[in-house]
């Protein structure tokens, strides 16, 4: 049995294509049902996020399976196959396993190490499990992928650093102020980045927000949104000393906070440190403020620098993650290939026994004066022959399980002895696990 992956991602398709082939989670049952009804496809999972649409499936017939799934994606979304085809990639065997492990570990993401993808795959797997489109192999496969992703997350620092301005600001604030749960944020002016940062600070446990703006209504509106307090712009310096984190992005043509203001503020707060982020251009906060003890001023450029460093760090960590994945692929591949050893041996045995029995029956039926004991003796003779004949291939197959050519052997045996499609007793396999 082979695992195949067919799909497209931000690497191969622009958003215009991706949105056309997205599967809505609200009606995922239908495509999942159709997927496993495709000829030769035994199990299937559909992963559909804004950056990728991928189908993981198991099949015996790799080339046929891939072609049918490609066709299925086009047909299901009523797209012309020729238009879609160049964007689709397909993988099988080890490459497919590696791909899914990498995707789950967020190594294939647009922002390496972003945490959402694992959750998205878990949800997709949840649907497949619910609608019974995944079976013994994909269940095991996906669980393995989850545990690999967990290993990557705990053993490397791939996701430990911030790669957005807002997060970088929060991380930096923690480096200065430690625990944010008793810290207050002051938002001066409005602006998307500022609001986003304020949101992140609140999500990270900041105690409260004060908002000020030249137009007081705007401040009130924002304050309400964040559950904070609006402060009139004129009264800024009466309240500034309450703030541990100051985010500023006004459209003022000159600095609104100077070094002397900050010195006063610090004195009033008994030199408890203040973290300033100046997002405005031109700047709102005089750069000299950074020269004051216990005041720490950062601009967007500084935050960008942190992000660049973090991204570089992430790609370094990604190499470690690939190592982990390499180790795990081997293990899983081994499990997958030995999965069919026992059923193949059983099927081969059944096939031999079937032939032996039918020939034996024919012989005995046509034999007029059957001496006593003959039936028993013939039975023993044919059994012994069968066992002797089967001994070598059986042990070869078992030993191949430890090597790597077991797929080859199984396929050869199946074709040469015309074994039925393997009947898989799921319960029996589960016991084997």
């Amino acid at each position, binding site marked *: 049995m082979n695992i195949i992956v067919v799909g497209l991602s931000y690497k191969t398709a622009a958003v215009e294509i991706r949105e056309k082939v997205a599967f809505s989670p609200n009606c995922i049952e239908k495509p999942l049902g159709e997927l496993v009804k495709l000829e030769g496809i035994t199990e299937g999972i559909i992963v559909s996020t804004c950056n990728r649409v991928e189908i993981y499936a198991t099949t015996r017939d790799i080339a046929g399976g891939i072609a049918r799934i490609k066709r299925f994606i086009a047909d299901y979304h009523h797209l012309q196959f020729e238009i879609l085809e160049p964007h689709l990639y397909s993988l099988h065997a080890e490459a497919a396993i590696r791909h899914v492990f990498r995707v789950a570990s967020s190594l294939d993401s647009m922002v390496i190490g972003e945490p959402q993808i694992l959750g998205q795959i878990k949800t997709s797997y949840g649907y497949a499990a619910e609608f019974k489109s995944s079976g013994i192999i994909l269940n095991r496969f996906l669980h393995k992928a989850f545990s690999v992703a967990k290993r990557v997350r*705990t053993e490397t*620092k791939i996701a430990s*650093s911030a790669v957005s301005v807002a997060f970088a600001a929060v991380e930096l604030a*923690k*480096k*200065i*102020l*430690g*625990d944010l749960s008793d810290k207050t944020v002051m938002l001066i002016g409005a602006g998307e980045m500022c609001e986003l940062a304020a949101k992140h600070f609140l999500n990270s446990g900041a105690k409260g927000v004060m908002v000020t703006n030249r137009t007081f209504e705007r401040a009130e509106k924002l304050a309400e949104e964040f559950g904070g307090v609006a402060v009139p712009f004129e009264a800024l310096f009466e309240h500034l000393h309450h703030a541990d984190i100051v985010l500023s992005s006004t459209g003022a043509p000159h600095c609104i906070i100077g070094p002397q203001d900050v010195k006063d503020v610090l004195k009033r*707060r*008994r*030199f*408890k*440190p203040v973290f300033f982020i100046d997002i405005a251009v031109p700047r709102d906060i005089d750069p000299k403020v*950074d020269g004051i*003890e*216990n005041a*720490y001023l*950062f601009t967007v450029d*500084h935050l960008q*620098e*942190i992000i660049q*460093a973090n991204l570089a760090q992430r790609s370094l960590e990604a190499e470690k993650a690939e190592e982990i994945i390499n180790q795990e692929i081997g293990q899983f591949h081994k499990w997958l290939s030995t999965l069919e050893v026992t059923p193949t041996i059983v099927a081969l045995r059944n096939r031999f026994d079937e032939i032996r029995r039918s020939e034996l029956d024919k012989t005995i039926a046509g034999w007029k004066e059957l001496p006593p004991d003959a039936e028993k003796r013939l039975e023993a003779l044919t059994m012994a022959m069968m066992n002797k004949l089967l001994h070598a291939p059986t042990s070869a197959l078992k030993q191949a399980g430890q090597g790597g050519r077991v797929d080859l052997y199984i396929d050869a045996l199946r074709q040469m002895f015309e074994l039925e499609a393997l009947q898989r007793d799921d319960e029996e396999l589960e016991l084997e696990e």
Partner: protein
Amino acid sequence: MTHMFFFLTAALYGCATAVYLVCLVRTSPLLTRWASRLLTAGFIAHLLSTIHLASKLKYLPLTNMQESLSFFSLAIVGGFLFFERRYKVTTLGSFVTPVALMMLAASSSLHGEVRQLHPILQSNWFWFHAMLAFISYACFTIAAGVAVMYLIQNYFLKTKQFGALFQKLPSLEIMDEISYRCLTVGFPLLTIAIISGSIWSEQAMGSYWIWDPKQTWSLIIWLIYAALLHGRLTIGWRGKRAAILAILGFVVVLFTFFAMKHSITW
């Protein structure tokens, strides 16, 4: 027996220090755990060795440079282990364990000659005084270690350098808090140590304060830390200024400990 424990301690401290230093450049939860385990094991061995020595000598081993250094180092490690557990600050180990290790090494390099205990040392006030003094010194050592870290981190923040060490070091607030904790424990202990010391001085020499160099310098240390604590509590001295003072205080502690001798005992 004491020797064996002592040797074991030195080996464990050495390994722990090495691992803590590696922790500065490599991140691994496993390393962090082992650093702490090794140091804890070393601390236990050190404690047992000290107890064993004390029971053999029938007095607390604090009477000469060798014994004092060993006890100093024991107190530093004990204090650090407490803070590490409380604040999860592995990096502090990279700054503090080398100091403890060096003190232990210096202690073992000194000769522990068997000698008659000076009669004036046989006073409970003396033991009390010496023990408290060393525990307060250990607190100041840790405060100085944190202060060095604080200055480094502050430098990174002001010059906008966000390298690996910046990521490793704890937040300014935590370091400030540890430093403050050390002072609030160390300063009262030093105060009691000085008082008990002068009581002992009165018993042994008939005067509470004899202005011998050790006493004088202890007073200077006391004044430095009193200024630091006072500045912090009243006008909010913290951060860089507090860190520099904490380091200065520690330098004076070391100077007093190594260079100033009691005029009467050693």
